[in-house]
């Protein structure tokens, strides 16, 4: 049973960042801009977030906040700066693909290539990293071993409220807000319409450029937050990489068919497979089967292909995603 809870707890470390970043991707694609820059945005957000954490963690401890919640406060500072940086960074993508009408794949790739180089360059110019590319931080302060009362609830308590990070709850909160925003508000309707048929939206009096900017910037914010969430829950230092999780989040987005609820399921599934891939040797049942770990790493992608093959007729992504908005085109 302990192993079972362990898997689910570990799964959250992978699933939550994927969820947050995939939701970010959803906002961008729903507005009509394909955002393959998510990897770069995650990386740059994580970098600035980790640097922020490094800079504030010791300063704050001397002040009033030197209590249990101190670590959580540091983390929230980090998340905010990570998000802001991601949002700022994504403006480049928005400018290139909305104003300059550039190919969205090219500008996204440019950001992906730029981000790790920038992170390494900056990290190596700081004295506190000893001029190396690694930025270390105190991860222990963020870990909540057990939340009182809630942690005692059977099953759910074990999964959600023990050995958890505050980021888990922030991620779930983001999911709820995102669902409401996309389906229950005027903004959500406009966002979706811009991704389906921008010319019609324009005719209805919607400023397509503005909506697309907002969509990309939200995705940048969530991408940055997701990057830091990933690093905080799995590392003790940041080494200028988010190991391809930005691209994985794109797969989650597609597997989740651009819908918040299905994105949640997809990210849980991807997270579970990731966990099993690296820990199957300790799971008695799977140990006997003795499949190579690559097998488990492969499953999410095969599943994505299968799901796409069966559902692509009925469910499609935003029709105008990736298309440059041309006012003259009807």
């Amino acid at each position, binding site marked *: 049973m302990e192993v079972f809870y362990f898997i689910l707890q570990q799964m959250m470390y992978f699933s939550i960042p994927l969820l947050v970043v995939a939701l970010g991707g959803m906002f961008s694609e729903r507005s009509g801009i394909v955002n393959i820059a998510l990897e770069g945005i995650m990386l740059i957000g994580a970098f600035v977030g980790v640097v922020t954490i490094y800079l504030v963690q010791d300063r704050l401890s001397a002040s009033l906040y030197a209590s249990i919640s101190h670590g959580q406060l540091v983390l929230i500072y980090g998340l905010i700066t990570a998000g802001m940086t991601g949002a700022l960074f994504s403006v480049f993508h928005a400018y290139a693909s909305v104003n300059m009408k550039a190919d969205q794949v090219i500008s996204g790739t440019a950001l992906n290539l730029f981000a790790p180089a920038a992170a390494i360059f900056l990290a190596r110019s700081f004295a506190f990293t000893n001029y190396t590319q690694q930025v270390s931080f105190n991860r*222990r302060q963020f870990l909540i071993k057990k939340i009182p009362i809630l942690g005692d609830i059977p099953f759910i308590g074990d999964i959600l409220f023990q050995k958890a990070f505050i980021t888990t709850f922030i991620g779930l909160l983001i999911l709820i807000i995102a669902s409401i925003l996309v389906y229950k508000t005027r903004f959500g309707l406009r966002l979706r319409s811009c991704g389906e048929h921008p010319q019609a939206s324009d005719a209805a009096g919607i400023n397509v450029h503005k909506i697309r900017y907002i969509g990309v910037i939200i995705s940048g914010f969530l991408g940055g937050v997701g990057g830091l969430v990933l690093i905080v829950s799995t590392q*003790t230092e940041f080494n200028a990489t988010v190991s391809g999780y930005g691209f994985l989040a794109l797969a989650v987005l597609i597997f989740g068919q651009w819908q918040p609820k299905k994105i949640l399921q997809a990210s849980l599934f991807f997270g579970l497979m990731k966990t099993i891939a690296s820990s199957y040797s300790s799971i008695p049942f799977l140990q006997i089967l003795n499949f190579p770990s690559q097998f488990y790493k492969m499953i999410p992608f095969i599943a994505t292909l299968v799901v796409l093959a069966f559902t692509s007729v009925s469910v499609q992504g935003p029709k105008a995603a990736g298309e440059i908005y041309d006012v003259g085109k009807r």
Partner: protein
Amino acid sequence: MKKILLIISIIFATVLISGCQGKTYEIALITDVGTINDKSFNQGSWEGVVQYADEFDVSHKYYQPSDRTDDDYLEAIELAINNGAKVVVTPGFYFEKVIYEVQDDYPDVTFILIDGVPNNLVFDEEGNVESGEERIEDNVYSILFAEEQSGFLAGYAAVKEGFTSLGFMGGNAVPAVVRFGYGFLQGAEYAANEMELDDGAITVKYKYLNSFKPSADIQTEAASWYTAGTEIIFVAAGGAGSSVMAAAESQTEKYVIGVDVDQKDESPTVITSAMKELKNSVYLCLKAYYEDDDTTISTAETTILDATNDGIGLPDDFSRFENFTSDDYNTIYTALKEDTDNIRTNIINDITLSYDQLGLVKVSVDYTNPET
């Protein structure tokens, strides 16, 4: 315009030349990557340089190459030699290729290569030698460490402390890492024999990660080991150690053994570290060079530092142990040093053997095949 340019270039040239002919530094250290205070190879080696230089009043300076490439290393070494270096210390195996070249180019300069043998070997995809050779000239000290003894001490200490479920994560199946691992297994076996435990009382999960970098996957894998009962993991995998420490920190009463240098500052879960005594080894080389004494260390051959010359060991701080004390450590270290009952010579360091040929009885190894 041309005249102005000419004047400027003359001024620059003068400044540069006069700059070079300024103060000279006899001992030079080239950092491998990062700076002098990296808490690792550079810092340890530099402390050895400083210790010797202060004691005998020799001028010394370190140089930081702009990047981790052979060209940048070469540039830094040549700069050091232009600045009057007679001895150049290069910490880390990254310098092997460069030293192979410069040992011929600068026969009057002595090089101290820590943890490496000068070579120009080229390997094919499967890790077999395709071409090239190892060659050590008269002006090169090549220092290696008996990692198996360092690992032995770590395994011994872990079992003596009372741990019965151990783990070993190596970066790759390269010789230094394999020696660490095999030493660890044999140290555990030795301690188990001493404590008269049953056969198979100690279990060791053993795996090569195929990575020296931190990653979420390694963190998960380590966490799964801890959850399945492993109490302490010896991680000989460079930066990947931080992922294992992250996993240990998420659990209670789980520990890590660090590698190469004392890593206790990286995490409170690091109970001890299997060290190579860099400072001491650099000091010994410098001493041998200046006193022209080749009894313990000499040029033109590889010297393996071990317990007999304090080349390896655990850090002095035993405060994170509950049962294993510094007295216990001194006893086993002295035994290694003096080879009591052939304890040292009995440690198998032949990496061509497989783990089940080490003659382990008390220790049962749960070996995970390295993924290719």
